[in-house]
């Protein structure tokens, strides 16, 4: 027996048809389309009913207050945390089949920077999926990694142990690692957290270069001031999707108010009760 029961229908005969219809409306060529995504873990509801289709070839910011579920959205898209419901399509196919098209930049704090590897080693890890099981890393892969390091301005630091890099440099190493993946879609989790202004500018330049080369970049971002200059599109998130669209259309006072303003306490309460009582996991 399942936790959620699809209900009959007289109430919603039409509504159900609509749901299916929206499902089909997800465009095939969208780099990332998320349908009906709900994530609840440790009894805490984090994301509810997220539905979005991102356009191709744009730099897209995800903004929202602390605890709004921005990072969670990225992780849930990549199956790093379990989803209560929903599906994620990358270029029209399930994420699992499209892994090689997705490059991920995790938050810097998630790894042990004392680990005995050099910057070049870390960047080379971006090629591992391409190299394949058990095959050794060849010179050409290392050269590709070196190119990526050069692109983020760290060629001189290639052989430093990673703990000897500054925070901004470590962030750029992560970026370089994603670059070597030569992905179509990049998901970046707070790449600007705790980096100096110069690094931030350098990273933004690279993001824009990626876009100009036809890639799609999704960035979890904090600083509202820079949203209009950094991003083409913005998704505003606070446990639910408040708005998504081109920055000049949706980055409005009204939407900011909705995103950062008071919480919808009733929704919160009900969401919490559901996750506690029902364990929405199917």
């Amino acid at each position, binding site marked *: 027996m399942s936790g959620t029961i699809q209900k009959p229908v007289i109430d919603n005969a039409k509504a159900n048809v609509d749901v299916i219809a929206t499902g089909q409306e997800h465009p095939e060529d969208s780099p990332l389309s998320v349908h009906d995504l709900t994530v609840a873990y440790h009894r805490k509801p984090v994301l509810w009913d997220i539905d979005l289709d991102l356009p191709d070839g744009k730099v897209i910011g995800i903004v929202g207050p602390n605890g709004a579920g921005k990072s969670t959205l990225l*992780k849930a898209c990549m199956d790093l945390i379990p989803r209560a419901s929903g599906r994620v399509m990358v270029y029209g196919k399930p994420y699992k089949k499209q892994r090689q098209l997705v490059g*991920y930049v*995790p938050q810097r704090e998630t790894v042990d920077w004392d680990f*005995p590897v050099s910057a070049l080693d870390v960047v080379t890890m971006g090629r591992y*999926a391409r190299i394949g099981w058990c095959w050794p890393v060849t010179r050409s892969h290392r050269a590709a990694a070196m190119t990526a390091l050069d692109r983020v301005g760290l060629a001189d630091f290639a052989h430093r*142990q990673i703990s000897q890099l500054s925070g901004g440099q470590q962030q750029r190493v992560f970026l370089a690692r994603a670059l070597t993946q030569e992905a179509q879609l990049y998901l970046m989790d707070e790449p600007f957290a705790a980096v100096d202004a110069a690094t931030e500018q350098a990273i933004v330049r690279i993001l824009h270069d990626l876009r100009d080369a036809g890639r799609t970049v999704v960035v979890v971002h904090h600083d509202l001031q820079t949203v209009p200059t950094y991003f083409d599109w913005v998704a505003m998130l606070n446990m639910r999707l408040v708005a998504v669209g081109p920055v000049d259309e949706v980055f409005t006072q009204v939407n900011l108010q909705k995103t950062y303003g008071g919480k919808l306490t009733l929704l919160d309460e009900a969401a919490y009760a559901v996750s506690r009582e029902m364990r929405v996991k199917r």
Partner: protein
Amino acid sequence: MPTIEDILALLTLRDYNTRLVITSTAILGAAAGLIGSFLMLRRRSLMGDALSHATLPGIAIAFLVMVAVGGEGKYLPGLLAGAAIAGLIGVGCVVWITRLSHLRDDTAMGIVLSVFFGLGVALLGVIQNLPGGNKAGLESFIYGKTASMVWSDFVLICGAAVVCMVMCLLFYKELKSLCFDANYARSWGLPTGLLDAMVLALVCVVVVIGLQAVGLILIIALLITPPAAARFWTHRLGMMLVLSVVIGAASGYLGSAVSALFPRMPAGAIIVVVAAILFLVSMLMGPARGVLPRVWRGFVLQHSVLRQHVLRAFYEMNESAHEGELTEVEQTQLSIDRLMAARSWRRTQLLRALRAARREGLVEVASASGGDDENMDGRVYRLTDQGLVVAARNVRNHRLWEMYLIAHADIAPSHVDRDADQVEHVLGDEMVARLEERLRREYPEVLLPKVPISPHVIE
């Protein structure tokens, strides 16, 4: 006491039995060092502890089963298979407990190791009380019985070591990615659960093979100590693995050699103590993360900071005397007392720094009027040609940094001196170049290769 002859005979492995024992333990140490490295980097060192304790009931059950089916109770492969199965079940229980409850993994490991070990002890108690002979010696698995190793043990250990080696080499890149950043590894499609299971399975193989040699408690040390020691020597994973293997092998080799030379030295324990000594040496001496190199680096930095302060004092006091750029000819000579006034430093500190600067040929004694070596107070010093060049560079870096702080960090000019003091010493050439680049707009003169004017009043 053993003679030199004995020692030589032993170290060159002349005797068949010692050859067998020593090579076996060395290979075991190498294998444990290899797989233990991945365990440590995955922060699961103590999983080996839980696993090895959990093997005991497996040994006892295997014995009982083999006796029950009418076989030879102490058939070694059977016992080891039992140990391996029990060990893996133990690890499975740790994972299971942490999944199903909100208990932490340390508690789960404590529960598994004590309960499994308790079951083992209880079963051994049953075995002791069983009628019929040939049941003694099962306890040797707890402490190991190195000296009684035979050819088949050697073959077993070699086989296990080869399996470990091959797996680690084959999946080197995958294991590296897993240990460094498991989330990222999963994002590009690495089956992290499967890889973790493989590491634990290999640990299980090493533990089970090591039971015979060093016993179930001391095999833990071979899994943990060599990798921890190797980490002090290098910042590269490949090198660390090699060193860990070498340290593990050396512990096995030296430990069993010592145990063979002296009477009543339990080999397993000696091997662990040798490993611990190697760890201690590594912790003190290891160039990458060792304690002494770190202390030494701190000392060197402090020394160079002091030297730079002395040179800057010379330069700036001359500068204020002559109002502007210095040339060698105009240099004023400075007495200790005047130098003392330049900064708040202790007299001994200053004298030590001056001595060092003289040795390096940066400072010279201008005149020794009224002073000899015992009484240095009367001496007058000045910079040498080379000293002047170095001092000018130091002062320039210092002032560039001050300018940067004033222009970009909004620090009041009266405060920058102290703030710049802390940073200038770690400025590399590359940083200086970036500073120049950054300051071009505010202070165009920084592009000239000369010392800029101090942005604040020098007292």
